[in-house]
């Protein structure tokens, strides 16, 4: 592991300012970008990308199957009221997917790749992967690991189309600076794909009317109509915390007055309970860790397991339990009130400073980019560092056949 690490060049403050991304290198984020680059072996990069595509197929198949099984929907955390839209979404907009991100354990140092989770509807790290990582690798003079995220997203966006020409596109978030920067990337993609006017907007500022559509009062009495919503707030947030918002969106979407990316069916993939059913549907699959609703149902609970909220984020409310009873790591957070799943503990590659490395693949919907985070802790959460990825140049050899 350690021989794959090299010093990362420090990008100038002026460069971050010029990109509008100072947020990622100043203040409490001053140490967010790792001071080292991880150089993957070509076969590691290839395996990770393939794993992304394979995991996508596995989870989608299980999601589609589960969407019409009431007992699975119960445990997936899809409220009864939310099911009509989720099922409509499966049947009517199954291919309308913009972007998501798989997180994996392993994949380095000979450790097997194991799927940790899928970030289905608010996949972050977009500015880091599309803007910052390429610049770090370029300055270091290394070969970039696979990273066609922007180009693939743009191609996907062109294929999907931007919707009604007489309406604009809202890229909505709840206000955090990080989320806003991620939304900026999606705005850039929509603009490049010629979707039309696309605005980075705050969800609370939108007027959402179940009969008429989504509006923004640009000036007193002057309303801008949005026919497409790029959503950077979670579907589960709407379903659980703001059911009225869910109802409004459901009415508009099912009346085809509004298109939302990612669509409502991605809530199935966002639910970590889907990992239980994916494993159940594909027992013994090497990518899928045994996952259960009760740790006693895991094949080796004494070998260690991770307790995760069904709808958790940012590594919050996680517990790692060893020997069936010892909590060796835990995080606090906002997601402790809901249901949990229990996932067999997986091995992460570790460096000399005890950083654990987590590889991720972006899916748009095919695997199109790699990124990585690390943390000197057993749980990779909001305190993790972003590690720029390079790849070793493949040696070109000549063989002479006699």
């Amino acid at each position, binding site marked *: 592991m350690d021989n794959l690490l090299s010093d990362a060049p420090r990008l100038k403050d002026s460069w971050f300012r010029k990109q509008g991304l100072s947020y990622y290198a100043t203040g409490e984020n001053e140490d967010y970008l790792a001071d080292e680059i991880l150089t993957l072996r070509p076969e590691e990069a290839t395996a990770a990308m393939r794993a992304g595509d394979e995991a996508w197929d596995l989870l989608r198949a299980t999601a589609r199957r589960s969407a019409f099984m009431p007992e699975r929907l119960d445990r997936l955390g899809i409220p009864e009221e939310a099911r009509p839209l989720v099922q409509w979404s499966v049947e009517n907009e199954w291919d309308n997917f913009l972007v998501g*991100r798989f997180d994996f354990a392993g994949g380095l140092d000979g450790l097997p790749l194991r799927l940790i989770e899928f*970030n*289905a*509807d*608010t*996949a*972050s*790290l977009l500015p880091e992967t599309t803007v910052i990582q390429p610049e770090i690798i370029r300055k270091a003079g290394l070969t970039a690991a696979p990273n066609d995220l922007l180009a693939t997203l743009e191609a996907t966006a062109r294929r999907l189309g931007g919707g009604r020409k*007489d*309406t*604009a596109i809202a890229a909505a*978030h*709840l*206000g*955090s600076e*990080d*989320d806003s920067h*991620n939304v900026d990337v999606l705005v850039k993609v929509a603009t490049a794909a010629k979707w039309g006017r696309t605005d980075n907007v*705050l*969800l*609370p*500022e*939108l*007027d*959402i*009317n179940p*009969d*008429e559509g989504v*509006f923004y009062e*640009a000036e007193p*009495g*002057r*309303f*801008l*109509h949005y026919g497409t919503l790029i959503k*950077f*707030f*979670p579907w589960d*947030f*709407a379903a659980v915390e*703001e059911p*009225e*918002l869910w109802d*409004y969106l459901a009415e508009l979407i099912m009346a085809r007055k509004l298109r939302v990316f990612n669509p409502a069916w991605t809530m199935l993939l*966002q639910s970590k309970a889907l990992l239980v059913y994916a494993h159940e549907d594909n027992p013994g699959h090497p990518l899928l860790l045994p996952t259960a609703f009760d740790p006693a149902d895991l094949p080796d609970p004494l070998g260690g397991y991770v307790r995760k909220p069904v709808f958790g*984020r*940012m590594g919050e409310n996680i517990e790692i339990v060893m020997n069936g009873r010892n909590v060796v790591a835990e995080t606090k957070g*906002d997601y402790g009130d809901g249901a949990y799943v229990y996932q067999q503990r997986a091995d992460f590659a570790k460096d000399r400073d005890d950083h654990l490395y987590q590889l991720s693949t972006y899916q748009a919907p095919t695997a199109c980019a790699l990124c990585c985070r690390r943390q000197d802790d057993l749980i990779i959460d*909001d305190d993790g560092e972003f590690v720029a990825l390079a790849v070793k140049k493949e040696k070109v050899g000549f063989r002479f056949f006699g």
Partner: protein
Amino acid sequence: MLRKHLLLPALLSAGLGLTLFSCGSGEPETETWEVPTQGLITTVKEVSTDDYKIASEEPVSQIADSRIIVEDMAGMRDTFTLDQAKLMASDSTSASSRPFRSARMGFFGYLMLGRMMGGGPRSSAYVNNNAYNRAGNTAGNSMRSSSRKVTRTKSGFGAGKSTRSFGG
């Protein structure tokens, strides 16, 4: 700014008597207004050069069947759909709006939509008092009784969540 969505303010500025409520501060802001559930065929006649007045308004069951029929002094007729009326009302500079522009049909588009939402044009918009009264008794009553109140809610959804990221 997509001007075609400025219909409500335009109608209000045309003094069509639509209802607009705003609730007090501290609550989600709401506006209530009327939306049509029936269509309307409005016939407009040129009474003197470039001066057009409403001759009749007849309700029809489907909104999509709404039309504005424009008849000039020579008896020539042009028929416009509701969508064309909306377009012309919102884009008076469009080259394709010639018949509307010359006849200020955009204004009649507003009037028709206002009537459909339960409002009523002033008597001066009609060719005579008989036409005004007849329209009020037929289209006016029908539209008032069939129009539907709709409330737009200013979302506020997720307000107060701005300090944390929801990225995954």
